[in-house]
């Protein structure tokens, strides 16, 4: 009988963890290096991203507040990401339930359809949606961008939630129904609580996918640009760059703090 502690100790053999840990932290460092550079330039008194640095200034951050268009674009991105991730999570979870719990003839077709957006390049999807909206007389707007983002997020939600559903025993649901619950109640009381974490991560993935997405947004945005679209447009003007970087930094730091707080809360529960 193996000593549990021995298993644990062997699993944490001395050579491997420091190697793996080192690898992880080097990677993390590389990931954050550009962000650190951006942070540096957001306080640099120069409009181009060149060395040598020219001295500290807070005017780019101050400038962010004076740019209503910029802040609106950031807000638009949040709105679109929130909306599209909500709808995608809903639709994707429905599809996941169908895939994991029902058998029907068109199942393969449905799954393929739901997963196909992963295979279509965004430039193709964006252009074809533009064609569709133009032909139908629908004006481009945040709504059209949101519709597109929902489409590309559904596959992620489907895959994440369906794999979670596949893991736990359907007999739990059968038991509930045997005990007299109808399907809706079973879903609500049995299934949803179990898949809730998976649904939450799926929603988070969908939000992330939408937030910085710009290929589709470029095709489908109307009067209100999302932040990446706005950014691309502003890049025509060289002297706007530092203000854009400052806002991006604010958004990154803000998201990081939010995420860390959420993680704290989650662990506290």
């Amino acid at each position: 009988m193996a000593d549990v502690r021995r298993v644990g100790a062997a699993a944490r053999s001395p050579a491997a963890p420091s190697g793996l840990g080192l690898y992880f932290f080097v990677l993390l460092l590389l990931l954050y290096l550009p962000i650190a550079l951006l942070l540096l330039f957001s306080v640099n008194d120069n409009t181009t991203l060149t060395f040598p640095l020219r001295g500290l200034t807070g005017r780019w951050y101050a400038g962010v507040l004076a740019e209503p268009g910029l802040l609106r674009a950031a807000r638009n991105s949040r709105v679109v990401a929130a909306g599209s991730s909500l709808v995608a999570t809903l639709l994707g979870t429905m599809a996941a339930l169908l895939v994991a719990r029902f058998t029907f003839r068109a199942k393969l077709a449905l799954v393929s359809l739901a997963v196909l957006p992963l295979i279509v390049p965004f430039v193709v999807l964006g252009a074809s949606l533009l064609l569709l909206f133009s032909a139908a007389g629908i004006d481009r707007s945040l709504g059209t961008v949101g519709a597109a983002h929902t489409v590309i997020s559904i596959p992620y939600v489907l895959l994440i939630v369906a794999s979670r559903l596949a893991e736990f025993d359907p007999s739990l649901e059968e038991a509930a129904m045997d005990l007299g619950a109808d399907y809706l109640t079973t879903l609500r009381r049995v299934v949803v609580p179990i898949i809730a974490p998976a649904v939450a991560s799926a929603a988070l993935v969908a939000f992330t996918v939408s937030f910085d997405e710009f290929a589709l947004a470029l095709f489908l945005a109307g009067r209100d640009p999302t932040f990446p679209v706005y950014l691309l447009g502003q890049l025509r003007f060289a002297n706007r760059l530092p203000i854009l970087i400052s806002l991006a930094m604010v958004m990154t730091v803000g998201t990081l703090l939010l995420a860390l707080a959420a993680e704290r809360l989650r662990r506290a529960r």
Partner: protein
Amino acid sequence: MKRSRAARLWPMVLLSAAAALAACTPAPAEPGEVTGSLTVLDWAGYDASDFWIDFQQTYPNVTVSFEFGASDADIYTKMAAGDQADVFHPYTGWLQLYVDEGLVEEIDTSRLTNWDKVPDEMKAIGQFDGKQYFVPWDWGFTSVLYRTDVVEGEIDSWSALFDPAYAGKISMWDDGPGAVTVSSYIHGWDETQITDEQLEQIQQEWIEQRDLNLFYWAGEPELIEAMANGDVAVAYAWQGAYAVLLGQGVRVAYADPVEGRNSWVGVYGIRKGTENYDLALAFLALKLAEATGNNVVNLFYYGHANQDVMNAITDETLKQAFSIDDPSILERTNFTPNLTAEQRDAWTAMWAEVKAAP
């Protein structure tokens, strides 16, 4: 019973009709009192009130909303697909397409204040079959920009973009028609009459030029950075990049090639069928006004169609960038001609093949 009720209604009907008629007659309103809304399809950044400040101050009760296009092709596609913007902002090279497809209204220039301040060459750019369809607004040069501390001597020809002496330090704009323009200048060909054989040759030359070219720039910041840190020494560039680099103290010069500089002009057009023709016209007229023009020049280093604004420039950097002190510069400048749809397709396909070539 019915008749008496109807009889009582008649005076009411007459009164309402009279009131309605009275409301219909256009009473000339003060600009400050005019209400309404206008939609402008423009490039990102131009929604900043700096660029329509005169209109904003003259018509404070009109709501102006902006839609954005990411490129000329994008703007054209949106307009052709039925976008409902009242006013839009294309650039030279694309204008013929709008006229051919019946997408623009004729502009009543008699109602354009400041129209007399626009040079004739620029007015001509927006004219087709003797009718004015577009109002010029922003403009600039294209020429060869180069680092004087890296390049020996002066550059005086567009062929510098093909010169092996600058191998690995050249940057060309990522644009097919732009490439055809450069080649036609170098070879002395008529830009508007490029034959298939000439296009083949142009394609081959640009494929070979890739060995000398570091990257194709899509936006000025890319180019400015690369020139500032020395990666690029010779480039196809607009004068905005020149002005910015001069302002940063980088040693650059903006060539005056023997073939002549190129110039592009941005124009505003009014969508055919718009219900806001009068407001749109007022918008365009005030786009030509001084305060707006000054902002265009000083904030973004683009030229403005209002000649008074250009003549009033005092900043030395800008004077150099626009060659203000050289009055004959416009005569030696080649304005971008308008392309037909076939030319646009052929030239962009050519450029795509240049980029795809092994």
